């Protein structure tokens, strides 16, 4: 399901007393969070500039425009940062953003609704789509290959899967 905004990180509180913040990044390349500005929050704030100043446990230290004191930084602790989906670079064929796949309905080749994509995971043996809901008693994991998932139509918002025997 293509959404307008994706969560790319969160503010984790103040760093020092000079208005710097601790920043947790959820990006594949953590430092890329600074490239997706402007970042918005669900409180209606917009940050146009993020300068990463260093690293800390589980994240970065950063200077963010609009946050100049420790009190301001502490007040925003735990706030999620959203980037515009349109700012993410376009991908070649057969590569998809997790954010685009999650929530898409999955049908089998006969048109029967199987469920929706709950998560995309990779344990070292290729990407897997976790499908749940629909007619399934429990969630199933579909290998994200051309053979098992022949059609991914983001425009129409649907995935067609051909689950191999033994998967259920």
């Amino acid at each position: 399901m293509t959404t307008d905004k994706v969560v790319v990180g969160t503010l984790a509180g103040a760093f020092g007393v000079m208005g710097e913040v601790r920043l947790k990044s959820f990006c594949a390349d953590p430092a890329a969070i600074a490239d997706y500005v402007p970042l918005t929050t669900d409180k209606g704030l917009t940050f146009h500039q993020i300068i990463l100043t260093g690293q800390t446990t589980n994240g970065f230290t950063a200077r963010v425009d609009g946050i100049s004191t420790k009190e301001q930084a502490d007040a925003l602790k735990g706030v999620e940062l959203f980037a515009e989906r349109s700012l993410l670079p376009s991908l070649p064929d057969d590569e998809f953003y997790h954010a685009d796949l999650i929530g898409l309905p999955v049908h089998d080749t006969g048109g029967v609704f199987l469920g929706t994509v709950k998560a995309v995971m990779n344990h070292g043996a290729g990407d897997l789509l976790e499908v749940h809901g629909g007619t399934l008693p429990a969630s199933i994991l579909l290998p994200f290959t051309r053979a098992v998932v022949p059609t991914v139509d983001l425009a129409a918002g649907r995935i067609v899967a051909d689950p191999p025997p033994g998967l259920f």
Partner: protein
Amino acid sequence: MARSVWKGPFVDAYVLKKAEASREGGRSEVIKIWSRRSTILPQFVGLTFGVYNGKKHIPVNVTEDMIGQKFGEYSPTRTYYGHAADKKAKRK
């Protein structure tokens, strides 16, 4: 201490039987196994195993660079979802 070379790699016998039967059948099915301790052998390349993680079978499509590893390494027993952010998935 590493396993002695003269013993050869360990594989549960039923895994070998199931893999052989699947290869002879020529069907692309998921071979359900519970043996996480078995070593991945060259004859498993191209097959898809469903490796049990204590709750469900995780599909593992065996490729050449997995040879010598154990099946359990590709079937984690704990789940962490995290955030999608800008992460990508590639269809192979």
